[in-house]
């Protein structure tokens, strides 16, 4: 059961019209490709994807699951949105509530185990190994954990386990952590245990795994185990961590290696042609997706599919998503430009000082410029750091063709 209904509001404009799991990552992928590919690579071929927030992009991306080989006669992928009932209709109010509302789906397969995943992390993990661990320990619940630096541990749910990895206690975002094992939000439940807990707790508002279900199971004596994971795992919940995770892919041999033969990441690819480099191009330390045309210069950047970088344009330390066009002679520095944008000629994106954003400094920071999908930036515009722009902007939206550092320019278009 893959939880993909959350907005991911700290990704700001990127998740304005799509759920966080649908956001592009690493040139050609979307975030949900990683847990979905892990599933099929681990032999999990029955996957329910729970959607709620703005599911259109997710629905069209997943389809019937062909790219992940999840188009099956038995099982396969099923998208599970919230639905109306004869009484007590509600949205998915919490992670465990969403699972509870899909009891019928789970029961139809009569499973022994349920794997609960969230659709917003970048990692490669063999869930089959985790299940073997679960079985070997006769656990009721196994929680995947990873060691984090002790000073950061207070940002996570922390598990305290004995030497047999049996969880004795846990704390949610503790001030003085007693362990460095952070929960990754990945659980394996014995289906009977899960079913009983969900039915017993069903009237709890905003039923949540970490807050309600796991404590309930512990109190009722279910054996809980911690499965330690030591690979790469990245929460891309903020714009800066999202940008960093993309940039890490560029390293010579990145910690998270997409080029491994035996743990492929699958995605829906609409664009197949090779990429073209013109005589005027230069490229260094970058990854670039299919069908992009590079006439300008690209340094230390992640470029998606079907992107055009105009002649004389310079893109540095940036993420450019699918289908975006960067006009001739523009400069783009440390920016995240979402899908299908059009940046006019002679623009300068990402200039100036690190001045805090005027509306949402907790989202737009670290000097990143963020431009929402389908935006248009007119010719010769300058946009300062920590700014955010979205919508079809025209010359008169800017004073003197300049958007100063830390500004917000979000234009509502006609459609929603």
């Amino acid at each position, binding site marked *: 059961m893959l939880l993909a209904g959350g907005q991911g509001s700290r990704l700001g404009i990127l998740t304005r019209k799509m759920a966080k799991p649908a956001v592009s990552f*690493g*040139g*050609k992928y979307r975030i949900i490709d990683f847990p979905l590919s892990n599933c099929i690579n681990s032999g999990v071929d029955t996957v329910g994807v729970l959607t709620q927030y703005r599911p259109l992009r997710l629905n069209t991306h997943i389809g019937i699951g*062909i*790219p992940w080989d999840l188009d099956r006669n038995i099982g396969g992928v099923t998208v599970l949105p919230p639905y109306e009932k004869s009484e007590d209709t509600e949205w998915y109010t919490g992670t465990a509530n969403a699972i509870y509302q899909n009891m019928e789906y789970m029961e139809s397969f009569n499973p022994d185990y349920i794997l609960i995943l969230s659709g917003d992390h970048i990692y490669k993990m063999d869930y089959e190994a985790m299940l073997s661990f679960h079985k070997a320990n006769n656990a009721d619940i196994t929680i995947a954990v990873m060691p984090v630096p002790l000073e950061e541990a207070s940002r996570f749910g922390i598990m305290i386990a004995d030497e047999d990895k049996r969880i004795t206690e846990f704390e949610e975002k503790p001030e003085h952590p007693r362990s460095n094992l952070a929960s990754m939000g990945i659980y394996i439940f014995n289906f009977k245990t899960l079913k009983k807990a969900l039915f017993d707790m069903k009237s709890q508002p905003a039923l949540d795994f970490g807050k309600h279900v796991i404590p309930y199971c512990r109190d009722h004596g279910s054996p809980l185990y911690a499965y330690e994971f030591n690979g790469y795992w990245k929460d891309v919940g903020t714009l800066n961590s999202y940008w960093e995770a993309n940039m890490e892919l*560029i390293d*010579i041999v990145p910690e998270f290696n*997409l*080029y491994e033969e035996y743990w*492929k*990441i*699958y*995605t829906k*690819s609409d664009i*197949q*042609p*090779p*990429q*073209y*480099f*013109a*005589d005027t*191009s*230069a*490229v*260094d*330390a*970058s*990854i*670039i*997706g*299919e*069908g992009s045309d*590079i006439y300008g210069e*690209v340094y230390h950047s992640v*470029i998606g*599919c079907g992107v055009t970088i105009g002649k004389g344009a310079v893109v540095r330390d940036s993420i450019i998503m699918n289908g975006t066009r960067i006009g001739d002679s523009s400069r783009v520095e440390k920016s995240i430009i979402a899908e299908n944008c059009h940046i006019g000629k002679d623009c300068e994106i990402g200039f100036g000082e690190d001045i805090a954003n005027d509306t949402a400094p907790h989202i737009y920071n670290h000097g990143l410029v963020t431009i929402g999908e389908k935006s248009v930036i007119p010719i010769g515009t300058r946009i300062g750091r920590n700014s955010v722009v979205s919508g079809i902007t025209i010359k008169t939206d800017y004073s003197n063709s300049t958007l100063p550092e830390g500004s917000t320019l979000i234009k509502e278009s006609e459609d929603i």
Partner: protein
Amino acid sequence: MRAIGIILAGGGSSRMGELSRERAVCAMPIAGSYRSIDFTLSNMSNSHIQKVAVFTQYNARSLNEHLNSSKWWDLGRKQGGLYVFTPAITAKNSSWYRGTADAIYQNLHFLKNSHEPYVVISSGDCVYKMDFSKVLQYHIDKKADITVVCKDMGLGSNIERFGTVSMNEEYRIKEFEEKPLHARTSTISCGIYIARRRQLIEMIEQSAKEERFDFVRDILIRHKDTKRIYGYKIDSYWRNIASIEDYYSTNMDFLKSDVRDYFFRQYPDIYSKVEDLPPAKYNAGAKVRNSLVSSGCIVNGIVDNSILFKKSYIGNNCTVRNSIILNDVFIDDNTVIENCIVESRGTIKANSTFVGDGNIRIVVERNERYVI
């Protein structure tokens, strides 16, 4: 569309030299991400031909691998779909396909069991875009028995490996010569035909009875005066790749922006098997000029005026110039490659030099590949 499709993909080609030693010409990689047969398959799919048969014979391993699923071309349908016919020993027959007409004859059940009134036949080793429904409409308007797609290659072009046609002012074909040494016209047959299904069955059965096996010689040329055979002239891009020179120049055509635009950006698309490769990666020291690079490549050196197919690795301080590097090639550090075609899955040792002088050199290197 009211037609079924047949793709003749049987051939190897002596003109392809070592490149077709291990694969049929139709499986030759083209333009970085495609294989030759993708163009015909996509054209048929985009023309709403729902039922397509591919006839293979010569070294079909990589072709069969490529055709492992019909979903890439949207031919995974309940009505129709993609069929691959290889020669088979039966109670009545124990021979290979002895020619193109024989290939159709040996699979005549496919024609007989279909209900669509027309058949589109195309060779699988051509690079082109075509809406077959327009050709079919022309075929119907002309009340033709067979329509042959033709192209004027222009004076002075080397056409001695093609069939040439001469038409009257109504585009009825008057002369048809197969591979003439001295061509009297520069208009050639593109190897794309439309015929009425029942008519075709009749002609194929007739020539099989007479032990004649070639579609062009024994059907088109023999019937040119008795049947209404018309030419459909195209002036859009069309290239056959079945010689090393043409293979090289067709690939290099894709470095031109108008050709890329025509095939990659204009509707409809050309489809190919999806291989789930990561985006191409450029490390420090990479310099890429006027080149195509496909997914899964890792580039550390200089690439100039070249085409890198999928999953190529170009080592540090390498120079690749005017060359075609086919799929999954590993080129170790300090290597120079100029005017070459490097065969798929090759591994080139560090500090090597391969330069084609005058001609295009085919490089087949099978060294031990060390994992970096």
